[in-house]
């Protein structure tokens, strides 16, 4: 255990000495770049469980891709993308045309989708394959996977930059957006595509179940630290990146599975934020805060 005392071999060497660790590190950072902001918008839209539902919905598509092409990232990702979007759109259509609310119709479709996926994988694959799809393995990310994750992160950031204003407006006050004649539903649809893309990107590295953890935990934590959408995004992305790095290091030193190690690190950040968060954490409730007051006291 002597090497643990040396910061270089403790913190740097594990991430640089091996090719699979270097790839895992870059994959984590790229995933965090995309998933962090997406998670923040899911929280703001009160759709935190939507990410969870969608991550399950992706499964049959990935399974069909697997049946046709084996453990091919391209086929599984494409299948997952199609299945995820189909479930999101069907749920949206049903909630707009029937009495069912979006959460209930989504639950209906994703459960059906998940059951179909498990059925397909266990009929045509093996238990090992199912475990791989459900829990992934960031240590097995290859160059192709890395490029995919990086491409998704780029697409996500560019799209968010373009639709930032209408997306924030749609989350905050959809009635206003409709009243000025803007197309809120188009923005909503684009956003759903980004959610599914990021879940599919996370799925090879972390698995369908863990990918959503890197998306939601930092975003939920961010609400305790920031009073602005922009600040929340910055915090969530930073926290997701840090969770990735710390999780990988823990996984290396203690021989833990990497996905759960990363998500549990994010969970620690989340729990700490509930207590120590500077904006709404439990501790600040008992402390005096500077407050906004009469105009004359606000002069700079």
């Amino acid at each position, binding site marked *: 255990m002597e090497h643990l005392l040396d910061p270089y071999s403790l913190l740097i060497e594990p991430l640089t000495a091996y090719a699979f660790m270097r790839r895992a590190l870059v994959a984590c950072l790229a995933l965090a770049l995309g998933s962090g902001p997406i998670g923040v918008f899911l929280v*703001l839209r*009160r759709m935190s469980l939507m990410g969870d539902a969608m991550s399950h919905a992706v499964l049959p598509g990935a399974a069909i891709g697997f049946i046709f092409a084996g453990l091919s990232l391209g086929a599984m990702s494409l299948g997952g993308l199609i299945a995820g979007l189909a479930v999101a759109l069907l749920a949206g259509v049903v909630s707009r045309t029937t*009495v069912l609310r979006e959460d209930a119709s989504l639950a209906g479709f994703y459960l059906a989708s998940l059951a179909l996926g498990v059925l397909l994988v266990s009929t045509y694959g093996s238990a090992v394959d199912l475990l791989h799809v459900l829990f992934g393995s960031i240590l097995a990310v290859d160059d192709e996977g890395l490029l995919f994750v990086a491409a998704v992160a780029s697409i996500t950031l560019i799209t968010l930059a*373009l*639709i930032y*204003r*209408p997306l*924030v*407006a749609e*989350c*905050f*006050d959809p*009635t*206003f*957006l*409709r*009243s*000025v*004649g*803007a197309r809120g539903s188009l923005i909503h649809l684009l956003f759903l595509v980004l959610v599914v893309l990021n879940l599919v990107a996370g799925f090879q590295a972390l698995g369908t179940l863990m990918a959503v953890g890197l998306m939601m935990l930092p975003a939920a934590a961010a*609400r305790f630290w*920031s*009073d*602005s*959408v922009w*600040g*929340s995004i910055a915090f969530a992305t930073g926290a997701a990146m840090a969770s990735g790095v710390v999780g990988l290091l823990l996984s290396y030193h203690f021989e833990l599975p990497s996905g759960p190690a990363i998500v549990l690190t994010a969970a620690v950040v989340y729990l700490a934020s509930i207590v120590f968060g500077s904006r709404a954490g439990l501790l600040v409730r008992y402390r005096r805060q500077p*407050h*906004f007051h*009469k*105009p*004359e*006291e*606000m*002069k700079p």
Partner: protein
Amino acid sequence: MNAVRPSAITLENVIVTYRRLPAVHHVSGTFAPGTLTAIAGPNGAGKSTLLKTTAGLLKPSEGRVLRGALKPSDIAYLPQLPEIDRTFPISVAETVMLGAWKRAGAFGEMGAAEEQRVQEALACVNLVGYARAPIAALSAGQWQRVLFARAIVQEASVVLLDEPFAGLDEDTQSHLISLVHEWHENGRTVIAVLHETDFIRRHFPQTLLIARELIAWGPTVDVLTPDNLARARTTIAKWARSEDMPEHQHHHG
């Protein structure tokens, strides 16, 4: 603010239903340009529904709303206070800046001129110095002032208000009603859903009295008579009774 000349808004036999139950039934009439009208009626009379339909946020299931040359962005709509999630991490200035949507849209620049408009609007509603405050820090009265400031920045020729003074302190109420009068004097069409008849008599020259169906529409003195108010109450009671009988069906030809 310069004088504006909005188009009239005409309701033609408007019916709005929720799950086939009519909330607004056969309403016809015209909000003339530049009028200041209160929409009054008992609880469940369809006041907010009528306002939303006028704003274009709800589609009538029968009949139509004619808005002349008005574009959606020419109409400012202020929802009831609780309709927006006020824990949302956004500042006062950003909220008011949304009013610039008509000019900047989803992608256009919101530059110094818009910043200036926002500052002026905040001054109008007595919120100078609150620009950077998160909306979560505001009281109900301050939040309603923010929504008024956003309507000012919208420079809309028609302003629709849903219970704009409910639950506000007296200071805020009198301040905001003076803004409403200012809009009226500048030629804007202002329509507000309101509860208190005394308040309406004092401040609103026109009134539309509704109880699912139109009871009366015209000068407030002619509309808010004891007779009409009594008729509104019995009408709404009749509607409530008919809804307890699901077998009752009523077809429109």
